[in-house]
C-alpha cells in the first residue's frame, strides 16, 4: 500500500445535510433555490446569517452572477468565498477546499450549496453555452448534448469490455428500487430490467432510463470544526481521505477511465482502508457506464470487470453493495450542479443514521465519488472522498 504524504483532515467535519425538494420545472430563479437551501441550513443549525463566515456555491443557472454577487443578494459577509463550477465534481471539490480552510483557521463555518433552477428552456441554454470546445466541436454534430457524447463512451466501453445494456440496466434498476423510499425522488415508478431494455432510444446505445431527468432543486451541507458541530447538536461525518484529478488520461482516444484511477491508491492509503471496508458507495451517475467506471477506477474491481461486478452484487440499500442509496440522479433527478452534491449529502445522511429513505444498517464508512464537465468528448473533472461517521 502506498504511504500517503497528504495531511489528514483532523478536527474537521461535514454536517447538516439539506435537500430542497426537487421540481421538474420551476419559474423561480437559481437564486431562489440557493436562498431556500441557505435558510434551511440556518434553521436546522439554529444559526443566524452572521454566524456563517464561509460560502461555497455551485450553480449553472445563476446567470451573470457568481458567488460574489450572491453575498450581497443574501446579506452575507463571509471571509472565505468559493465558486465551484465543476458540475458533478462540485461537492467533492467544495468539501476539500472548505475542509482545509476550516482546518487552517481561515474560516469557522462554511455553508456549501449547490442549486439550479429548471425553466422550460434552461437545459437547452445550459447546453448551448456549456464550453468553448462544446460550441466549436460537439454541439454542431447533431446537438444531442451529453446523451450523444456519453453514447459514444458507452458504446466504446461495451465494445472494449463486453458489457451489455442489461449490465447497465442492473445499476438503474437497483437505484430505482432505492429511490422508491426517498420522499424527494422525482422518479419512483417501478422499473424492471425489461422496462429498461425496452425503453425508447435516445442516442444509440443510450435509451431513456440511462438518462437523468433535468430538474430544479438544491442540496447543501455545512463544513466546520468537530467541536462546532457538537455545539450545534449536529450529527457529523469526518473526512478520512479525498482525491481530485482533472483531464486525466487525455491520450485515451475515447474515455474508458477517469481521474480516480490516477490517485485511488493515495485515497485508500490516506484513509488507511480497503474497498471492502466501505459500507455505502455513492457514485456520480450521469450515465450508468460512468458508475461502472467508478467501481473499477476506485478499486472495487479491476478495469473492464465492472459488468461482472454488477452482476455479482446487490446494489440496493439492503444488498451487499449499497450504491446510490437515495436513487442517484437517475431516479432522484438532476438538479443541475446539485447533482454533484446529491451523493455527498446522501452519504452524510447514511453515515449519521438519518437517511430519508432506505437506511443502510450500521453504515460507518462511506465513499462518495464525483465526476463531470463534458467539455468536448469526455468528462474532465473527477474526485472522491472517504467519509466516516463521527459518532
Amino acid at each position, binding site marked *: 500500500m502506498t504511504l500517503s504524504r497528504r495531511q489528514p483532515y483532523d478536527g474537521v467535519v461535514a454536517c447538516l445535510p439539506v435537500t430542497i425538494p426537487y421540481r421538474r420545472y420551476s419559474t423561480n430563479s437559481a437564486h431562489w433555490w440557493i436562498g431556500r437551501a441557505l435558510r434551511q441550513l440556518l434553521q436546522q443549525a439554529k444559526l443566524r446569517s452572521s454566524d456563517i463566515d464561509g460560502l461555497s456555491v455551485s450553480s449553472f443557472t445563476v446567470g451573470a452572477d457568481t458567488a460574489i454577487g450572491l453575498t450581497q443578494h443574501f446579506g452575507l459577509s463571509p471571509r472565505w468565498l468559493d465558486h465551484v463550477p465543476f458540475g458533478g465534481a462540485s461537492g467533492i471539490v467544495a468539501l476539500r477546499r472548505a475542509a482545509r480552510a476550516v482546518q487552517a483557521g481561515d474560516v469557522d463555518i462554511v455553508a456549501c450549496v449547490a442549486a439550479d433552477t429548471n425553466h422550460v428552456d434552461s437545459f437547452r441554454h445550459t447546453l448551448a453555452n456549456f464550453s468553448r470546445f462544446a460550441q466549436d466541436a460537439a454541439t*454542431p*454534430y447533431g*446537438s444531442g448534448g451529453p446523451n450523444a457524447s456519453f453514447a459514444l463512451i458507452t458504446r466504446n466501453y461495451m465494445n472494449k469490455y463486453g458489457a451489455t445494456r442489461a449490465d447497465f440496466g442492473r445499476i438503474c434498476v437497483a437505484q430505482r428500487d432505492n429511490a422508491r423510499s426517498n420522499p424527494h425522488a422525482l422518479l419512483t415508478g417501478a422499473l424492471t430490467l425489461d422496462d429498461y431494455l425496452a425503453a425508447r432510444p435516445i442516442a*444509440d446505445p443510450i435509451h431513456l432510463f440511462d438518462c437523468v431527468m433535468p430538474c430544479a432543486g438544491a442540496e447543501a451541507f455545512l463544513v466546520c470544526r468537530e467541536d462546532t458541530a457538537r455545539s450545534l447538536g449536529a450529527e457529523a461525518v469526518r473526512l478520512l481521505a479525498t482525491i481530485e484529478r482533472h483531464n486525466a488520461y487525455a491520450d485515451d482516444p475515447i474515455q474508458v477511465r477517469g481521474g480516480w484511477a490516477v490517485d485511488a491508491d493515495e485515497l485508500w492509503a490516506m484513509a488507511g482502508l480497503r474497498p471492502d471496508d466501505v459500507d455505502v458507495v455513492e457514485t456520480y451517475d450521469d450515465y450508468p457506464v460512468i458508475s461502472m467506471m467508478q467501481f473499477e477506477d476506485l478499486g472495487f474491481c479491476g478495469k473492464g470487470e465492472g459488468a461482472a461486478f454488477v452482476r455479482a452484487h446487490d446494489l440496493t440499500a439492503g444488498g451487499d453493495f449499497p450504491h446510490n442509496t437515495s436513487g442517484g440522479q437517475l431516479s432522484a433527478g438532476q438538479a443541475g450542479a446539485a447533482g454533484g452534491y446529491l451523493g455527498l449529502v446522501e452519504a452524510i445522511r447514511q453515515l449519521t443514521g438519518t437517511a430519508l429513505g432506505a437506511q443502510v444498517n450500521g453504515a460507518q464508512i462511506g465513499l462518495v465519488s464525483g465526476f463531470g464537465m463534458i467539455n468536448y468528448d469526455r468528462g474532465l473533472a473527477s474526485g472522491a472522498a472517504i467519509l466516516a461517521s463521527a459518532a
Partner: protein
Amino acid sequence: MTEPLPRPPRKNPLSRTRQPLLPQGLRSRAAHGLTAAAAEGRFALQVCAECDTVIYPPRDACPSCLSPRLPFRDVDPCGLVVVETTVRVSADPYFRERLPWRTGSVKLDAGPVLVAHLHGDVAEGDRVRMSVQLDKSGAAVVFAMPIAETPNLMDDPQLREMNCDPKFRRVLITDGRSAVGQAMAKAFSEAGAAIIFVGLADEWKPFPGAARLRAIDRVEIVPLDVTDSESVNELAEQNGGRIDIIVNTAEYTRAGGILDRRGLSIARQDIEVRYFGLLRLAQAFGPAMRSRGADGVNSATAFVNLLSVHALMNWPAYGAHSATEAACLSAGQTLRAELRPGGVKVVNVFSGPLDTEWFQALPPPKVSPAALAKATVMALVDGREDVFVGDVAEDVRQRLAVNPKALERELGQD
C-alpha cells in the same frame, strides 16, 4: 448503401414552405481556421509550430508545449471511426427535423480524435477520409467520408446538407450569350440539374453557339437583361420561387486602366453590368431564395459569383475592370451574410484571364469556359465557398497569402 436521391415531386402550392433553420453556428476565432479551410476545400488543422503536435479542437495554446504559434496546415485526412452513435432525440430545432442523425468519434492517423458527422456508407471500425465542410450555418464541421467512392455517394442526406449539389435543382444562368454562359449551361445539364434557365437579353440578336445552346438537354431560354431592372424583376416574379442556384455569367471585360482613359462610359457600363447587375439579381431573387433554403430536395442553395481573381488584388493592365470586380466581391460578401439565415451560400469562383475574346492578347495560361464551368459545378458539389480556378488564380492566391504588397508591385510592373 446510400439510397439514390428521389426526384422531388411537384411542389404543392397549398403547402406551407418549411422555414430554413440553422445548426449552432458560433465558433471561437481559432476555430474559424477550419472555416477558412472548408471554404477552400482543404483539410487543415492546427499544427504546433514548435513541437509539431496536431491539435483539435482548435485552441490558443499547444496542449503539449503551450506554444501560442498554432498555424493551420494541411494534414493527412485519413483515420478510423472508433465508435459511432445515432442521435434520435435533440432539443435543437434544426437537428430535430433531420433525425436520426449519425455521428462518431474518428481517430485521425495524424493524432487527434474528432467528433464528426458520418456519411451513411461509413460505420464503426471503418477507415475514413475526413473533410471539412460548411454546414447550413456557414460554420465549419468535420465530415467522415468513405475512402473509396460508393454508389450514389453524393446523395447521402447528411452530406447534402453541407453542399450545394446541382442534381435535381433548378439553375438560372444569367447570360447565355457568352461562351462562359453556354459552357455553364452544358455543365449543369450534365450535373443533373432538373432545369437550366438561361437568360438572354435581346434574344433576337444572333450569337455564336445559339443553336448548340438551345439543344442542351433541359435548357429553357428566358428573357433577362441584368442592366434592366424591369427585366430582372419580371423574371423573378415569374420564376423566382423555382430558382435554386443562380450563376451570374453576365460579363463585361475591357483591358485598360484609369488614367489613360478619357471619360467614364466604359467604367459606367462595367459597373452597370457587373455591379448593378449583381444588385438587381440579389434584390429580385434573394428574398425568395433565402426563404426556400430548406424547401426539400430542390431547395434554394447557392448564388455563384464569377469573379476575376484581380478582385482580390488589382491588376493595372485591367485596372478599371479589377476595381469593379472588387466591388462585386464586397457586395457578394454582404449577400453572403444576408442569405445565411436561409442556409443559402454565396460561392465565389475566382479565375485569372479566360480564353475568350476580351482576353485575346494575353499569353497562356488562360482558363477555358469549359474549365471554369467544370470548376463551378465541382465547387457546388463539394460545398466550397471560395474557389480558385486555373494557374494564374492559384498563383495570385498564394502570393497574396504571403505578401500582398509584393503582389501589388509585381502586378503593377507589367
